[in-house]
């Protein structure tokens, strides 16, 4: 599965903006990303949003077996 890492996380953590991983859900993805770049899991809940096949997904238990792509992007909150 293609993992697209958006700025600033590509440079801040992974040194790459494309990764190939096969997580079964988004919690699993966070674990795998943490293994690649320790510290990512700690900031993920506060700073990261995931989009699965183009749609933002806030439920990290979401099964990814059928997914083609996950985008890791900065979370934007409002005032």
């Amino acid at each position, binding site marked *: 599965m293609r993992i697209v890492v*958006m700025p*600033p996380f590509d440079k801040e953590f992974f040194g790459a903006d494309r990764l190939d991983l096969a997580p079964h859900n988004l919690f699993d993805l966070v674990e795998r990303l943490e293994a690649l770049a320790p510290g990512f899991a700690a900031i993920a809940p506060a*700073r990261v949003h995931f989009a699965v096949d183009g749609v933002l997904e806030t439920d990290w238990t979401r099964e990814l077996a059928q997914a083609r792509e996950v985008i890791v992007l*900065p979370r934007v909150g*409002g*005032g």
Partner: protein
Amino acid sequence: MNAPSTMKPFRHVGTRPVRPDGVDKVTGKALYSTDFKAPGMLWGAILRSPHPHARILSIDTKKAEALAGVKAVATGRDLPTLESLVMHVGEGASDIVDVSHNCLALDKVLYEGHAVAAVAAASPEIAREALGLITVEYEELAFVLGLEEALAEGAPVLHDTVFTKGVDPKPDRPSNAAMRVEMGGGDVEGALASAAATVTGRYTLEPVHQGYIEPHACVASWNGDGQAQIWTSSQGHFAVRALTASVLAIPQADIRVTPLEIGGGFGGKTTVYLEPVAMVLSKKSGRPVRLAMTREEVFRATGPAPGAVIDVRLGAAADGTLVAADVEFLYHSGAYTANDAGAGVSSAIGHYRIPNSRVVGIEVLCNRPAAKAYRAPGAPQVNFAVESAMDELAGKLGIDPLELRLKNAAIEGDPQTTGLPWGRIGYVECLEAAKAHPHWSAPLGPNQGRGIAGGYWGNYGGPSTVNVSVAEDGTVTVATGSPDIGGSRASMAIMAAEVLDIPYEQVRAVVADTASIGVSMVTGGSRTTFATGMATVQAAEEVKRLLCERAARMWGVISDQVEWRSGEVICLDGEKQGQAMSAAAIAGRSFHSGGPIAAVAALSAKGWLPGFGVHICDTEVDPETGHVKIVRYTAVQDVGIAIHPDYVEGQIQGGAAQGIGWALNEAYIYGKDGKLDNAGFLDYRMPVASDLPMIEAVIVEVPNPSHPYGVKGVGEVPIVPPLAAVANAIHAAAGVRLKDLPMAPDRVYAALHPEG
């Protein structure tokens, strides 16, 4: 207003009933932050730094402690040492260590007004007197306020622990550039080189304050057994609980936070400044303690929206098709990392289809109060630059500015800056509505000009908990965990009444404390009507199902043989066919049919959609004084579906007025000594009634298919377009393009008279 196309007709949604908390608020009975008193309460006060940047060498509190009537004194040493932890409780992520140090400075003060010590005493007078008896020894440090100055070689660095995030390789020394975010793709330089027309500009904005009329205040009471109560006005009492517990390193359930009425927030009341300090003072004194800021403290120590320096280049083909955008901006972060850069990047150019783009945002630490969310945080600044540049481009191409926007407007399926496709957005619908509005073609008088600008905000969903319960007489209470900042109790009651098909007056909505309802995210991000509304609908649906089930059991039929109609259950089959049972009849007998009727919905709402707005502004520029008068203003916005149109219009009008203030008057003004010179409403001049015309709000409804009633969210979008709408109108009126906010009379006059 266009009619919702895909939704069934509503009985309550779209009506304008009086809000349930209305009478309390027009009679002065509603309790806001400083209206609440606890028995035996002490009065607190906070000592603040007179220096913009200094090391704290020592703090001597002995004389203050010895003053008669002083019951407790606290400094940063009284807060526990914490491990770095990034928390997201509502808007931008904050490191809890920064939150703690912002409540009470530890080793360094980072801005004039930074809290250094606190006192609790028997009266406000004694508390203030005690502050004067505290001796703080400072070692003054060089300070920096400006964006480019803060990034310059040799600038004083605020934090030796901050290494710019988002750059590779990781920098080997700390700097004031907290974060760099870059998005985009394609060949920007190539496309600009071959474009038929290009525009280039540098735009600047000063920090502005949210300007809520109620200053921050709270009362805290922390007992020896570890349990505590806090009464406060905030945009999220669960956020107050989480942040206070984290700063104090105590269990969240030990704190019960009761939300008082909130006197405005606009993003600025999504953090804690006072609560942990009041808690420490309460524990030390054994008494409840009130801490309340003065207006001056609000200006000096609470979060402004970032100022900015923004460079924009746009290029288009001869027919107006945008081919490239290059946007690079610096945003003030203030004393701590604020995380507005990402929002600025994703809010810059996504409303247009632009094949080649590069958007870079850099967040800059400096010796100003920590930047805080302000209505669409990070969006208005960059939008001012982009929408001004669009106007200039339209002029160069000889294309009507509205048509240029329409030609390039993003539609469903187009990529956002992040690459994600837009969902069912309504930018084109807003532009069409603006074009069709009489304002767009109305004649103008002498020295008048018309400007237009478009903008958007992503909105949000997230966690909310709602409890819908039925009293024995069939009337309904909706309890949410979402502070009501502008009429949300009314909209929750409307949605519950819609589900249950009962009169609005039979549903009463309240905001419950942290011990009485489940966790809910802050009221902010334009999420409450969407997310808490979704939970309200879900809980009300469950209550309806329970009522049907109870009626079926009482009649001795299966659930399929009953139906909910106009607020009562109808029996469809068997002996009782055709009989009706009211909610009152069911609830009145609920103790003997399985227990009270109630349902909780706790969810993390998904499927939110952004809101888009288009504002038309007419200005009249006085050539002799440079004064700009707003003579007519129309704000068009896609809201999904308006649950209570009065409060939707109110959000749009209020956001537009704030944007007009940002455009024309408001700015933080600092002296050469690094101290804020206009920390009061007289000198920080927000719009008053005589500054503004009526603001016509035009509601466009492109329903959100993911929300049961089509809601998208309203509050933040309307502050995004006004900055450029006003600037574009000034250009149209006077032929001068102002790129620096605020466009106060002196600046306008100077632009009109370049010879001096």
